[in-house]
């Protein structure tokens, strides 16, 4: 049982509150947003907290303006964030692409609710998983995190800022209506023990500065506007100084960097949890709130002697392909419960297909458990499906 102590009190905290608190702990300087259920509490709390530290909160006219404002703030050196839900996230896609193209750090929180369109404002969904990967046009990098609890909402918000700053890109924190609105007893970690990453500023003379310098790590130092360094920011393909280019060799360097800054750092980017997988004969792959139902199902199924485990991605993108191949190698059936029509399912099939079917010449069962009526998948529903499949 969690004990109450003066130093680290256990408190009842809401998911959205934990995101706001996590952002402040990460050093958030600037928030621009447009309120939308079920993300509104994030804006509400930050509108109160940011001015206390002399920082800015701006309620914008819409979500297009919101994403533009945080990109501008970030170019001026601020740690910037916005928070929204599906309809607003759709409007932000162009801006998100611009942030990725211009390698401008920022964090976008998307609290998933039922869609498409305005859908089910007060109900949970996991319908935006693919949109976070491919929502913006063109090949673009994607770092997307998805917590399963209030505590993890806090932790992954801090991580989202760290990754945005380090990799100079727009990082998306996915959550869902239930996770965002539910309250849990939590003990937040001491701020002293929280590692914070800030973008690296250039130290070279201004005339040598390249905003997009080529280097082996594919991430270069970044100056802020007003710091004395000259650079250009455009959504057009650009050269190392940021000026538009039509040259295929320069475009290739740029596109290569956008891809490789992700693919060369998979070990750091990909986080997943294994739950009772040691001797598992069948397994569940689930994320976010659905993983809570899955864990409950695993514990119950284990009590009746069924050897089942769970893999839960904390990083949705880049997708944990290697983890799936490793941990699902010896299982016969993989269940994929999700609050959509099969967005994770197809990724699981893609990640596992090439490894298994040819080598073992066995048919592996990949079983969908899907719901998109605004209700959660229950542990019992997962257990029932496991019994049916055998």
């Amino acid at each position: 049982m969690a004990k109450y102590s003066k130093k680290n009190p256990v408190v009842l905290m809401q998911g959205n509150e934990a995101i706001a608190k996590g952002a402040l702990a990460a050093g958030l300087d600037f928030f621009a947003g447009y309120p939308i259920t079920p993300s509104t509490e994030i804006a509400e709390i930050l509108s109160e907290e940011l001015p206390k530290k002399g920082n800015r909160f701006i309620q914008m006219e819409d979500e297009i303006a919101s994403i533009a404002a945080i990109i501008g703030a970030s170019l001026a050196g601020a740690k910037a964030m916005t928070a929204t839900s599906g309809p607003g996230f759709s409007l932000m896609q162009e801006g998100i692409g611009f942030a990725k193209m211009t390698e401008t750090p920022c964090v976008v929180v998307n609290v998933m609710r039922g869609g498409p369109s305005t859908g089910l404002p007060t109900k949970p969904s996991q319908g935006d998983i693919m949109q976070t990967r491919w929502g913006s046009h063109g090949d673009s990098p994607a770092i997307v995190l998805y917590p399963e609890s209030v505590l993890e909402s806090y932790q992954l918000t801090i991580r989202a800022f760290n990754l945005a700053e380090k990799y100079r890109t727009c990082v998306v924190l996915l959550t869902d209506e239930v996770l965002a609105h539910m309250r849990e007893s939590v003990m937040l970690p001491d701020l002293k023990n929280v590692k914070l990453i800030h973008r690296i500023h250039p130290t070279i003379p201004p005339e040598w500065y390249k905003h997009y310098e080529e280097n082996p790590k594919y991430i270069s130092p970044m100056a802020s506007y007003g710091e004395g360094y000259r650079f250009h920011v455009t959504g057009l393909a650009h050269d190392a100084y940021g000026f538009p280019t039509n040259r295929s060799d320069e475009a290739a360097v740029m596109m290569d960097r956008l891809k490789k800054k992700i693919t060369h750092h998979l070990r750091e980017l990909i986080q997943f949890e294994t739950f009772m997988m040691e001797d598992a004969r069948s397994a569940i792959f689930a994320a976010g709130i659905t993983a809570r139902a899955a864990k409950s199902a695993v514990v119950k199924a284990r009590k009746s002697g069924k050897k089942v485990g769970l893999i839960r991605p904390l990083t949705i993108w880049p997708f944990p392909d290697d983890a799936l191949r490793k941990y699902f190698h010896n299982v016969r059936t993989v269940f994929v419960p999700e609050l959509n029509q099969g967005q994770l399912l197809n990724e699981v099939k893609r990640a596992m297909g090439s490894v298994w079917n040819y080598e073992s010449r066995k048919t592996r069962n990949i079983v969908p458990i899907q719901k998109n009526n605004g209700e959660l998948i229950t542990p019992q529903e997962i257990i029932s499906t496991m019994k049916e499949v055998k």
Partner: protein
Amino acid sequence: MNNNMKEIRLSGSGGQGLITAGIILAKAAVIDGYRVTQSQSYGPESRGGASRADVIISKEKFYYPEATKFDVLLALTQEACDKYSPNLEENSILIADTTFVKDIIVQEANIYEIPFTNIAKKELGTALPTNIMSLGFMVKLTKVVTQVSLKKAVQDYVKKQYVDLNTKALKIGFRLANDPAKYSGENSG
């Protein structure tokens, strides 16, 4: 009923303060040192429409945050009672506000029928703190949290100008639990 874990559903319609009641109950459970989650389901309207809050209070780690079988169900409307009471089990407790719940379809559970809203109107002149009154009744009856912690949670959470009113409502709730059979079978519409 699992002694280490209690699944509680507070149900009714939007505006009756069920989510507030859920938050207060969860806060009391935190004071008592339990692990707790409080989740909810509501419609887009701020009044009317079905509303519910689930509170899970446990000594041990648990995962799923919604109540699946109810140890305690509080129903403040007929609709909520009809919808959720079929999930009750033999040892479950159903607490119904008979101001609005006229017809209870289940028989398995331990059923308590109290006209909370009418009592609130009569004794306090307003139906507003019905949520806190029924919470007081439930806590005294089931001991899911201590009365001291519940009182502290109420006083910490509600706005200053409503502390007195809600403290009174809480006390009435505790008192009603001394003689829970007093109102049963009575149609007090």
